[in-house]
């Protein structure tokens, strides 16, 4: 029960932050990416603001265990790999096209109107076929 409640609180804070920061406004996201147009630096402030408490939280995990028990995530894998690069490029293309990424896509569903639902549905479809795409890719060109 504590786990569910904490997840709800974490999600609520995330949703509030996405709403207040303006990151559900696609013009701000595309404005950040548009270095040759009317460049909007807001996203850098959002990123900086978000990384600060997270960095403190990571330091705090040392020598401790999560509130609900269990273990903290394993240290980050130093291996990069093709899927990381290829996936990130593909994600970036979609992010640039619509100005939406998964978090803001959920946060904006209630007020963004039908375009947000179309994007969200297509994103879910993409996530559903992703394991197949990964298997195809790995069989065609095995990752090292």
């Amino acid at each position: 029960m504590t786990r569910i409640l904490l997840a709800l609180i974490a999600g609520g804070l995330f949703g509030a932050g996405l709403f207040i920061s303006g990151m559900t406004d696609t013009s701000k996201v595309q404005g950040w990416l548009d270095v040759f147009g009317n460049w909007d630096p807001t996203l850098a402030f959002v990123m900086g603001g978000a990384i600060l408490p997270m960095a403190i939280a990571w330091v705090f995990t040392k020598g401790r265990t999560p509130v609900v028990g269990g273990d903290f995530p394993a240290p980050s894998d130093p291996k990069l790999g093709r899927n990381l690069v290829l996936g990130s490029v593909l994600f970036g293309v979609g992010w640039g096209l619509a100005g939406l990424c998964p978090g803001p896509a959920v946060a904006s569903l209630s007020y963004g109107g039908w375009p947000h639902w179309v994007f969200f549905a297509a994103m879910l479809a993409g996530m559903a076929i992703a394991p197949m795409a990964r298997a195809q890719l790995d069989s065609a060109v095995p990752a090292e």
Partner: protein
Amino acid sequence: MLNSIPTDWLFGLGGGLLIGLGGAVYLLGNGRIMGASGIIGGLVDGSGKGNMSERLAFLAGVFLVPVLLYPMFSEVNTHATTNIIVLIAAGLCVGVGTRLANGCTSGHGVCGISRLSLRGMVATVFYIMAGGLTVVLFRHILGVI
């Protein structure tokens, strides 16, 4: 216009702090990395069967809090494109791409960079570069978005 810019930055910074606070609660409370694409993707492809309710509770928070905040703000406009082809193509790219890369702006960007993860930093460089090139190509050259 000039007067409104710093306000946007301030809201960006404040909202960013809340986003990071959410990630801190998820990490220190539940021992999990707050990655939106992983949380949603695990529900879609079945890889998150073991902790469905935790994922759903998180997403409920993300969805519901803006519902409560919306009436308090005037002029909320997301400026989303109404080009359905662009929306579908973008959604598919984001869905496949984030799952292939195992993370998006929240997982790789916020949670990865904050622990100096090389994967997080490399992913972030690539999706920002790809996003930038996409906007240049589709806005300034093709004029689609």
